[in-house]
């Protein structure tokens, strides 16, 4: 089947198989490998992308369902030298260890801050609770999101 979608601001036209997932076309066809596959069953959030302003697990979205939608992946945020504020905060707070969860974490945080630029601690934790991390104990990740939200008083 043919689908049309916007990925990181660029219009894409693709011929996809009905059983292909959004995750597959991002990684295998568009080579946007920043989106990770952790569990493939909607549990870990490593495959998080933003679709029309909302986070989705791209392993749970069929490519056909993304037809006509706008998708942002981690490649659509900052670049080396001009990082997105959430990416900068992750670096400054030391919120990255192995990095496997990081793209999904950053996108969940971005989607939250786009919706509410000044979330409280609880709201941050709830927004990030669909993203598993095995390395950091979440401590620095929460601090990074707070920092990005401008909540950290220095």
């Amino acid at each position, binding site marked *: 089947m043919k689908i049309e979608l916007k990925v990181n601001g660029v219009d894409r036209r693709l011929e996809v198989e009905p059983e292909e997932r959004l995750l597959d076309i991002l990684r295998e066809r568009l080579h946007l490998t920043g989106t990770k596959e952790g569990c493939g*069953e909607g*549990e870990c959030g490593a495959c998080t992308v933003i679709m029309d302003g909302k986070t989705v697990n791209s392993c749970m979205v069929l490519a056909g369902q993304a037809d006509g939608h706008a998708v942002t992946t981690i490649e659509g945020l900052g670049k080396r030298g001009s990082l997105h504020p959430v990416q900068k905060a992750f670096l400054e707070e030391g919120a990255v*260890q192995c990095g496997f969860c990081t793209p999904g974490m950053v996108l969940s945080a971005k989607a939250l801050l786009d919706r509410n630029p000044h979330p409280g601690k609880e709201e941050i934790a709830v927004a990030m*609770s669909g993203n598993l991390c095995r390395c*950091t*104990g*979440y401590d620095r990740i*929460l601090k990074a999101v707070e920092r990005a939200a401008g909540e950290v008083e220095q």
Partner: protein
Amino acid sequence: MKKRGRGLGCAWYGTGYGNGFPDVSSAFVEIHDDGSVSVLTGAIDVGQGSSTIFAQIAAEELGIDADEVTVISGDTDTTPDSGTSAATRHTYNTGNAVIKAVTQAKAGLLAYAARALHCTSADGIELKDHRVRVKGEPARSLPLAEVVSQARLDGERFLGSESYTARTTRVNPETGQGSPYWPYAFGCQVAEVEVDTETGNVRVLKVVAAHDLGKAINPLQAEGQIAGGIAQGVGFALLEEVQLSEGQIKNPSLSQYLIPTVLDTPEIHAILVEEPEETGPYGAKGLGEPAMLPTIAAIVNAIDDAVGVRITSLPATPEKILAALAGPSKT
């Protein structure tokens, strides 16, 4: 009813392979003519931060910044073997190999610089702030990059290639004597929990963790490792169990084998205890694995403190806690 309690857990942990098994790390170092440095080791940085530590070590030894050090790691075509990223060993073991290799590369540079600066001995030369200086006479100095590029034109190269082996010995099976691990890491944690006596559910509210790591070469990373260890300890204590049936894992997915989310992890307060290990790089020793060990005992003890039941098998699930609260079963 929700009841709170506190518990203490302590751990000691032998780092490295142990028991006389050859625990060897190797490193190659080159000082380049722009004053930058490359460090090659087989040590894989899986997120624990070893590459950052090696860059910091080389920078410290040579008076440059860590971002001027290129660390190339874990490429079997080009890097020397440094063993596995396991046993909490890279900062100590491979860190020592990096110091030795940098020292070797630096020895040639100091000897060359002594001649260039008309100093009688290499012992009189120091490397600081990107400069090569005569000790005690800051006016007699040259930029590091200039010295190295001049040396290059004179046909000199500043290279290091060294290995470090941890000093453990086999334990004598007759006497039990020996030095099975070197060094040991120590840690102690206090957990505060809230136990719901209706549901058996346990929430870990706060963990204070004090860990002896010899010297915190990178305190931010050290705190990160402690927090990560605590989250794994919470999972080990309350959630995680590999269920086997006739050799098959029954719960091989994240929907069946639950690990802590951000909502399950406590407030964490880390205390870095710096009791220098004399054989370690700047006194440092490992921290990674020990960080999760005291958490488990601290949580189980805190449950006991809160509701007076002793859980003796992990994980301490709500079912086990409710059963223990109901008292000994009458079968």
